[in-house]
């Protein structure tokens, strides 16, 4: 046996005589590290979760701007011609009229017939037939959509006799809460 071989045997023997605690430590060693498969699974799941989370956040932000917006949100900062009264003869085209609580004047913005129709069609039967009055109205604002032929449509009012005269529109109380579709239609109307 060469010296090198002898030395290696001594090393092997020396390892065999290490402290019991090190031998014990190695025999009971339990790693906290997850297996490669588990780590891959978690990484993949985390990626999916991150994508879903971001999608939800973006989706919520997007939807908030539409679904959670109220007519008040939409019209509060909207500019328009301001008047203190509206006469039938003054309207040659459809217009949107709104008034914020606490204001005496009304804001008027002219719209096209197509835009007018786009809002009208969002007022479904359930909405216009609602019998709940003040309880369901949107606080802080009143809105009317008027056409030159004398028809008055408002998210708050039924499309019914008595609701079709300019002269009367300001005396009606709100009847229904505008739907999300109505709010969105008015938003698009204002942007258009």
């Amino acid at each position: 046996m060469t010296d090198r071989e002898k030395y290696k045997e001594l090393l092997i023997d020396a390892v065999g005589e290490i402290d019991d605690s090190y031998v014990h430590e190695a025999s009971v060693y339990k790693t906290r590290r997850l297996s490669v498969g588990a780590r891959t699974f978690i990484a993949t799941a985390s990626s999916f979760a991150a994508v879903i989370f971001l999608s939800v956040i973006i989706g919520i932000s997007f939807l908030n701007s539409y679904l959670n917006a109220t007519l008040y949100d939409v019209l509060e900062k909207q500019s328009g011609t301001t008047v203190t009264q509206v006469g039938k003869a003054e309207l040659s085209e459809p217009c949107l009229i709104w008034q914020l609580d606490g204001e005496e004047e009304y804001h008027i913005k002219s719209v096209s017939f197509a835009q007018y129709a786009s809002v009208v069609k969002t007022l479904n039967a359930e909405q216009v037939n609602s019998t709940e009055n003040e309880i369901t109205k949107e606080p802080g604002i009143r809105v009317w959509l008027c056409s030159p032929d004398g028809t008055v449509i408002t998210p708050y009012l039924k499309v019914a006799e008595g609701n079709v005269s300019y002269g009367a529109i300001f005396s009606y109380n709100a009847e229904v809460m505008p739907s999300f579709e109505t709010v969105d239609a008015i938003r698009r109307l204002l942007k258009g």
Partner: protein
Amino acid sequence: MQDYEIVSLYWERAESAIMQTNIKYGRMLFTVSETVLNSRQDSEECVNDTYLAAWNKMPTDRPTYLGAYLTKIVRGIAIDRYRYAHSDKRGGADNVTAELDECVPSELSVEAQLEAGALRDAMNSFLAGLDGEKRVMFVKRYFYMQSVSEIAACMRLGESKVKTTLHRLRLALAEKLESEGLK
């Protein structure tokens, strides 16, 4: 049964000590022995020799970690048997011995015929300076003589990571031995 209870049986010279040892550690001891010898029959004999050795050592020994204590005995017996038989079979000891070549000085002097005690102390000192994971890896490889793949699976590491770490540990050990005049 707890380790101290089994040790007490040895001290009381109760023959059930062997049976209880076999129940708790028989399989592990066989595995360690077979890793070295690569032979089922020889390994079973080594385990039996281990029980006899334990019977003779206790008393006076009173090990805290009975498993580690027995493992050291069976490993020593298995290595002695391996060296004696000088089998052509490739056992775990062959691979480990080859790896430790890095820790052997290129020119050995007569003084380098070291007492095992000095190397053992240096080894313990070396292990004491390692963090837990590296120490476990070293012990698994060079005490238990587990393969790199076994260690990687057990420690949930890549094989390349284990190989690299072991290589660095061998270099560090060589440096330690040299600094202490043991190489």
